[in-house]
């Protein structure tokens, strides 16, 4: 039997906690109390599941990738289709949960940070749906890479605040969102998009995302009568992976988290936090992160705007340390090749983030036998990445 994490101090083994300015301790305690009450309230949970069903389109399908399976000639490949969620990614599950909580707490304004824009879009969407004001912090570089998602957020009525510090990516957007929250914590709800940040965020986001793993388990048992041998999910902050893995932690399935190796983990341009980082504090949480010897956080790189984060959720750090989950890394090129292959074989264009999980799974599937099964969490669809993909594949031609 696994221990229950996080503990009362918000720790997953050695990791997690609350490393924030004193001004945020009150708001975090308030959030923790309200969250615990809400998660014990059957009416709240009912409303959350109703909205997931009627608005977000859950349950999402479990698809057997028959052509892909045949093409690789190894393990049977299944895809959990989080790309079929309203707005096109798993981010919606968490955004709905936190927005309902914000509403319950009487907050009228939400703020969010976003990298690839999927969380920003999800936050802006639930804000529109539940009548909340929404401000999204986004790095200037990500604004450039994800123009379409910026437009979607604005169309949904959100204010998008560009962040120019650092590399102008997710890390910097998160810093700025936290600073804004420090100044406006009395009437703003900070809607964090991944299983990162101070306690209780990693736990809260996991619990709103576990619907992915819960559904997968049930669906898989229906079609295969047993659980998958291996389960793959990409990891930036790690919310889709945590949501998928959590319900399987006590089962026999092997769990594999896939990080972004960018231009290669032998270069300085990657976002492979567990593979190459070491423990430290980022955005209020003790976890693995990419840093220099003086403890300055370094800038990550990935072609995917959703994975270039120098930290990782503290629960992943714990699962890495205890070896319950195996973490691998995949380069930009490997991810793009896998993306192209899935698109051609199955008629599904995945997000570049998800393509990292696909690439690792495809590598391993060929070496497995045809009576073995694997499940890949397809965290989102590739529509948002079209500009990046066009540029890449045109250059290749």
């Amino acid at each position, binding site marked *: 039997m696994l221990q229950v994490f996080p503990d009362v*101090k918000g720790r997953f083994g050695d990791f997690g*906690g*609350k*490393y*924030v*300015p*004193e*001004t945020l*301790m*009150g*708001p975090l305690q308030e959030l923790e109390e309200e969250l615990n009450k809400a998660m014990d309230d059957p009416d709240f949970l009912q409303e959350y599941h109703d909205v997931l069903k009627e608005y977000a389109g859950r349950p999402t399908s479990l698809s057997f990738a028959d052509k892909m399976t045949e093409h690789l000639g190894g393990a049977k490949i299944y895809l959990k289709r989080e790309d079929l969620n309203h707005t096109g990614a798993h981010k919606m599950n968490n955004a709905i949960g936190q927005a309902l909580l914000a509403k319950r707490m009487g907050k009228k304004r939400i703020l969010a940070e976003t990298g690839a824009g999927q969380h920003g879009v999800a936050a802006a969407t639930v804000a529109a749906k539940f009548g909340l004001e929404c401000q999204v912090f986004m790095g200037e570089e990500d604004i450039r890479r994800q123009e379409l998602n910026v437009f979607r957020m604005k169309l949904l009525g959100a204010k998008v605040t560009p962040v120019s*510090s*650092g590399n102008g990516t997710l*890390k910097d957007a998160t*810093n700025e969102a*936290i*600073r804004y929250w*420090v*100044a*406006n*914590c*009395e009437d703003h709800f900070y809607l964090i998009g991944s299983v990162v940040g101070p306690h209780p965020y990693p736990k809260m986001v996991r619990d709103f995302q576990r619907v992915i793993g819960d559904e997968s388990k049930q669906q898989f048992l229906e079609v295969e009568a047993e659980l998958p041998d291996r389960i793959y999910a990409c990891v930036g902050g790690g919310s889709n992976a945590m949501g998928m893995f959590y319900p399987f932690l006590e089962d026999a399935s092997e769990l594999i988290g896939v990080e972004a190796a960018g231009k290669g983990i032998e270069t300085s341009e990657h976002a492979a936090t567990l593979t190459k980082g070491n*423990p*430290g*504090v*980022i*955005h*209020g949480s*003790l976890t693995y992160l990419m*840093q220099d*010897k*003086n*403890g*300055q*956080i*370094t800038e990550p790189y990935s072609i995917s705007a959703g994975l270039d984060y120098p930290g990782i959720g503290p629960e992943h750090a714990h699962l890495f340390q205890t070896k319950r989950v195996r973490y691998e890394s995949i380069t930009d090129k490997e991810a793009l090749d896998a993306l192209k292959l899935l698109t051609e074989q199955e008629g599904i264009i995945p997000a570049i983030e998800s393509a990292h999980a696909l690439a690792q799974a495809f590598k391993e599937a060929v070496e497995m036998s045809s009576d073995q099964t694997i499940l890949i969490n397809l965290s989102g669809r590739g529509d948002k990445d079209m500009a990046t993909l066009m540029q890449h594949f045109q250059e290749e031609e």
Partner: protein
Amino acid sequence: MLTKTSFKGKLTKTEDLFIPFIVAGDPTPELTIEFALRLQEAGADVLELGIPYSDPLADGPTIQRAAKRALKNEMSLTKAIELVPEMRQAGLEIPVVIFTYYNPVLQLGYDRFFELLDENGAEGVLIPDLPFEESEEIRKLASERDVEFISLVAPNSDKRIKQIAEHANGFLYCVSTLGVTGERNEMSADVLTFIKKVKEHSSVPVAVGFGISTNEHVNLVREHADGVIIGSKIIRLIEDEIEAFKDGEEADALERFNKSVRELVK
């Protein structure tokens, strides 16, 4: 009755404290020493020496800029602590509090960190992202080593004020408003109520920081608290002189800085 403050005997006052903040290495390590001396001349009682950090969550744009300049000079936690004996040699007598985010300390390790403080004669530590709940171990180590571990309270600390104040050492840092560091035009009247509440529980001097940017603010805080902490405004005064340093007019620039600081706290 204020009893616990000593900073190894270097601080004998318990009221009307002037506590300025500068960033080590901004704009250069050599000038940091000069600024420290000019601040002492202008009446500083304790120096907060900031360690530049890549991701400072509690800081506004002014201190972020200073940190960026200092990081360009490859300033680090170790190098900053090692500046202290140079400051002493140059004539700095007031206690020095090392102001650093938690991650650089974590990478260095507590043992090495306290060893460095001891070897280099820094008397205090302040870690803005290490709240009471996470700081038990370091508070214990600091107390064993006779280093003042400075705690912070915020206007929304509510029930936590009593607990934090009772465990405070050195001085208690009252964050005047919700928000990050930076200059502000007005100080809210609520600050005074907040200071009063904190003073009821504190056995060390209560110093107020965040947003103090005019002589009017300074005197208002002085009336109600035991000390005033000024960061961003001091950094701005340094920024005003950066061009002059580049032009080699160091002496004039430092003189102007000293005069501006005196005006600020007169």
